[in-house]
């Protein structure tokens, strides 16, 4: 007996939906085994991870708060990845967006200036992320540099730049020498949705709007078709009159803007000031979210919520079960591995073939 992968005549629509679910199931099994090896009860651990956060309204809000940047960044990344353009530097664009938006908040801090500050901050955040994203895009278009490497390396540049600002020029004079800016003014803060009850903020609404816009773009607009065509058949896209270079600039600008917007929303929302702990690797985790969501906006929404759940569950497990916080990263890594593996099932089918006796006179 022998297992072979046989190419399907058409992509299987059922498997396309089932594949992320199969991946999640396989991840849960693997994680359960890991818990067992670590000497913890898999049942308790999985329920702490996946059930408890869903039973508590505060945790539910926290999940949405975590999912907001993940979904926004992943939507932008999915546009790149569909077109076979590899923006790995969303983390850097996230940070630079946060820094650009914070500039205004820091400058106007304590001046009691009008409510226009927040919208302008969001705009600056998106703009900063977009411009930062355009650096690797321009390097690819004009110098042929691999956007994978340049975008990744720019993450560290952005990170260290922010670090310098919060330790140097932007440091809160009353902050007891901690590397952080002063708390943003009320007008420079993203409002929460339920006053006095949890941290769910208006940014989550923006994320939902982004999901809807992306659905329309990819499904109904010629620009979305261009993105899909360049990814699926570059030569046909050229024949169609679409330019890959133009698309590299467009997708990097859009994904950079979304990452930057997510960055400033995160700073002006749940955190309230700029400090080096601003990101827990959202820009990288969003890559997992993009693929887990099958590069589909609605899928990404659910994937973002699911991955956020692993963050919140991980925090609970850390407190109640003394599980290392790194375990959440292991978890997400295993998940990405299974997602990519299960994707082959969409194009190929697995077949079991009986082995054959060799004819006696075969050469």
């Amino acid at each position: 007996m022998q297992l072979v992968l046989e190419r399907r005549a058409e992509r299987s629509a059922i498997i396309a939906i089932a594949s992320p679910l199969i991946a999640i199931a396989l991840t849960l099994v693997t994680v359960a085994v890991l818990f067992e090896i670590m000497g913890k009860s898999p049942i308790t651990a999985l329920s702490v991870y996946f059930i408890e956060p869903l039973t508590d309204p505060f945790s539910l809000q926290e999940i949405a708060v975590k999912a907001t940047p993940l979904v926004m960044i992943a939507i932008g990344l999915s546009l790149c990845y569909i077109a076979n353009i590899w923006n790995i530097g969303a983390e850097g664009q996230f940070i630079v967006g946060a820094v650009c938006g914070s500039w205004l908040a820091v400058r106007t801090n304590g001046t009691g200036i009008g409510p226009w500050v927040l919208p302008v901050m969001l705009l600056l955040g998106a703009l900063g992320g977009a411009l930062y994203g355009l650096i690797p895009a321009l390097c690819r278009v004009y110098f042929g540099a691999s956007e994978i490497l340049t975008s990744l390396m720019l993450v560290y540049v952005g990170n260290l730049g922010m670090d310098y600002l919060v330790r140097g020029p932007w440091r809160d004079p009353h902050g007891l020498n901690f590397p952080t800016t002063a708390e943003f003014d009320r007008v420079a803060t993203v409002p929460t949705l339920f006053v006095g009850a949890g941290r769910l903020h208006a940014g989550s609404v923006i994320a939902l709007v982004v999901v809807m816009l992306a659905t329309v773009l990819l499904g109904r607009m010629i620009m979305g078709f261009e993105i899909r065509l360049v990814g699926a058949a570059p030569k046909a896209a050229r024949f169609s009159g679409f330019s890959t270079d133009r698309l590299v600039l467009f997708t990097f600008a859009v994904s950079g803007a979304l990452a930057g917007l997510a960055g400033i929303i995160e700073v002006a929302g749940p955190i309230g000031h700029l400090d080096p702990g601003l990101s827990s690797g959202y820009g990288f985790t969003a890559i997992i979210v993009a693929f887990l969501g099958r590069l589909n906006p609605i899928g990404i929404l659910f994937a973002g919520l699911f991955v956020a759940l692993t963050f919140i569950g991980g925090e609970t497990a850390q407190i109640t079960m003394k599980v290392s916080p790194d375990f959440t990263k292991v978890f997400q890594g295993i998940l990405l591995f299974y997602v990519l593996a299960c994707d082959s099932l969409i194009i190929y089918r697995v077949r079991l073939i009986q082995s054959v006796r060799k004819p006696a006179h075969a050469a």
Partner: protein
Amino acid sequence: MSAAGISKRYGTLLANDNIDLDLHPAEIHALLGENGAGKSTLVKAMYGLIQPSGGELRWMGQKIVLSGPSQARALGIGMVFQHFSLFENLTVAENVALGLPSTESFAAIVETLAETARIYGLPLHPHREVWQLSVGERQRIEIVRTLMQNPKLLILDEPTAVLTPQEAEQLFIVLDRLRDEGRAVLYISHKLEEVKRLCNTATILRAGKKVAACDPRHETAASLARMMVGAEIGEVKMASASAASAPRLVVHKLSLEPDDPHGTRLNDVSLAVTGGEIVGIAGVAGNGQDELFAALTGERLSPEPGAVMIDGAAVGTLGVTARRRLGAAFVPEERLGHGAAPRMKLSENALLTGHAASGMVKYGFIDHAATLAAVDRTTKAFDVRKAKRDPEAASLSGGNLQKFVVGREILREPGILVVSQPTWGVDAGAAATIRQALIDLAGRGAAVLVISQDLDEIEEIADRVAVMFRGNLSAPLRAAEATREALGLLMGGAAADAPQGRRETQHAVGA
């Protein structure tokens, strides 16, 4: 090898229905049938690529179940596909080595490769990278690769579809030789004259069923075609000679450096196609036809705006979309991947060229109903056979996809149509439909330029013929003057061998 009662079902479609086939040593057996008749399915089953749903295969009298191509190869079955499976970025020798069991050293493989190529008269340079090679050369790799495994049965899927008459003649010599060596050959082709010249027996499939077995030497091409199609094939009718109008497509002193170092430089190419005529461009593959096509579509821009003119407008520096808006339409040689996106639906492939000027896009939004309507219109006008209303392009057979790709452009009623290899790997019935559509389009006043390596095709439809050789385009000949001898000389570079031609010799792609 023999196949007994082979059936294969894809969903509701019965691609092979109880087919028997016996292949004997020292015999070239033809497998004939229209596109979608089930030929590819049958040979895929015989090569272990798919498992038949019913029936059995026997190899030298013993029942076998093939788990895959590697087992088929181990038994002594070799196959040369219509679509090549070569890695573009690897050299000829590396591609060959990949297909072989890894017991031999690379140097030994290179040596065997050169030896095999020499014995069978198939010139190949082992260290050239595949992306630089023409279609004809790529096919040689596939054939040599298969021969190196010393097969007892060789299956060839439409091998001459991409060859010049001379190249095809060389291939026939190779095949005759293989037969004389006692090997069995299964030969799939649409070119009936070829089958008559080459094959001892023939099996004819229609709609998944075996309809006849015969000796093609005792049949006429017409009687074979009748068995394949099940009806008479309409002769391609020339439109009444339309009065020559103003030139609609003009190429003026176009020179263009190739964009890859091994491409062909276009030298001072000039050409005018008037409305109502079909101009053919003949030539051996790799003499600049691809570069010319890219320059005409706008996939590559010319340095001068006036180098390419569409209906009087200088478009040399404008892109594909702008040229389409001026009424030009294009059909590339490669259906899958260039003319159509394989894993996209037909409606999306209609949008692929239709987004420019067919009212399929309004304010940036796609009119899905309009794209589907275009698919339905093309399906109806060109008899595109498919399993459902809007399948992925890759699920169509080659001929049906070609009808779709050509029909998609013709139904836009372009003023200018540039088409490369319009009937590459297409069966007789579909080829006749496509050629007739080209003639009718010219009859309605369009300028049609056909780039083709198939001289039969050019003879059949072109009013004037020019020949490409090493990036130079000959002056066009009237159809009456364009005898095979005259064209053959031009294709070999006789007239173009001016001093300039010589200088290019080093640079040009070896044919």
